[in-house]
């Protein structure tokens, strides 16, 4: 099934986000980005924090999906993403992400070795916030309509 399509399934503990036939997927693997085309060898990997992109079977590139940690199982005709969190651009609360970014930056600016700072956690939350903000920018801009007076 080399010329075929991949069934891309994205699930989180709370819901199934997506189940669609696609021609190409790019995943944020824990050890670097991972491109998957139909016919890929079976693979299991951990996911990091980043954006997932795919191309629909028709060819159009999708909006990115913010993925935060999880696992992926790749089969020749199927990619299953088990993400802890997966959000579409329009689902992201950008204000919250910006606040989280600020907090994380402040904590990191205090420097490693400072007391009461969990370095890994601070950098992880920085990364999460950055990915969320970046992905959120793809959201259709309807905010000025939705909130009159802005």
């Amino acid at each position, binding site marked *: 099934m080399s010329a075929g399509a991949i069934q891309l*399934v994205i699930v989180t503990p709370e819901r199934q986000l997506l189940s669609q036939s696609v021609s190409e997927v790019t995943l944020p693997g824990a050890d670097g980005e991972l491109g998957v085309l139909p016919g890929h060898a079976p*693979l299991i990997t951990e996911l990091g924090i980043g954006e997932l992109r795919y191309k629909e079977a028709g060819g159009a590139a999708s909006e990115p999906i913010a993925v935060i940690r999880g696992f992926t*199982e790749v089969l020749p005709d199927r990619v299953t993403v*088990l993400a802890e969190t997966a959000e579409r651009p329009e689902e992201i609360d950008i204000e919250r992400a910006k606040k989280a970014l600020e907090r994380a930056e402040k904590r990191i600016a205090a420097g490693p070795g400072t007391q009461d700072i969990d370095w890994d956690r601070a950098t992880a939350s920085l990364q999460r916030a950055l990915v969320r903000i970046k992905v959120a920018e793809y959201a259709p801009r309807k905010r000025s309509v939705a909130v009159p007076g802005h």
Partner: protein
Amino acid sequence: MPTLLDFRRRIRSVKNTQQITRAMKFVAAARLRRAQESALAARPYAQELAKMLRSIMGRIDEPQHPLLAVRPEERVLVIVLTGERGLAGAFNTNILKKANEVFRANQGKKLSVIPVGKKGRDSLKRAGFEFPAEFINVLAKVEFSTAREIATLVTELYTKEAIDAVYIVFSEFKSVISANLAVQKLLPVEKMEAVEGESRTDYIYEQPVEKLLDRLLPRYVETTVLRAMLESSASEYAARMTAMESATKNAGEVIQGLTLHMNKVRQAAITREIIEIVSGASSTA
């Protein structure tokens, strides 16, 4: 002898109660639908995760992991999932009965309990249990973060070897009229064998299998807790809906009975009056 007015009052009061039970039934029905949906939505993740775990465990001859370590069960932790509120028929009682069975089966061992839900907390506290932790007001809206909190707590206790086994007691949602009381072993995670029909694919593992196992197992525990919470929440609403439906029906029957009595009393009063008038008229005539 109750007067007409007494009957009217009682009928009105029963009617008020009936209105409340009916409203509660509708609320429970709406919540049940939502709870069922989220229980259903959580299923694919749990299934895929279990599949992945099975595949990885199948690849390792003797999987070694703190969460897989089997020790003689001397200190047992039981997580009891009840409801937050009553008026759900025998829902809470049944779960507590099941929990008691588990306690009795583990007699002589050191028992600790983590209650989830107010009803269970109150009742178990009265029974004299001490809790390492309790989770209240988390079942109305089940969230993954709560499941994670509970899972992290027990896995920590388990890895520190403060406890030897963790069980979770909850009500499994079968249908609106039936639930199954389940006792599930949460820790140690039981070894999983490849399921028949599931192809044993030779995967490329990007990370070492041991590391993947180390990441997958905590997720698996979290998902198991989440599933138990979602199931419990759905069966609580189902139990409440059924209980409120029969309460509404019973109230209807009481009203009918009271109305019948009231009419009899009224009839008797009218008859008596007529007799008085007639006898009065005939005596003067």
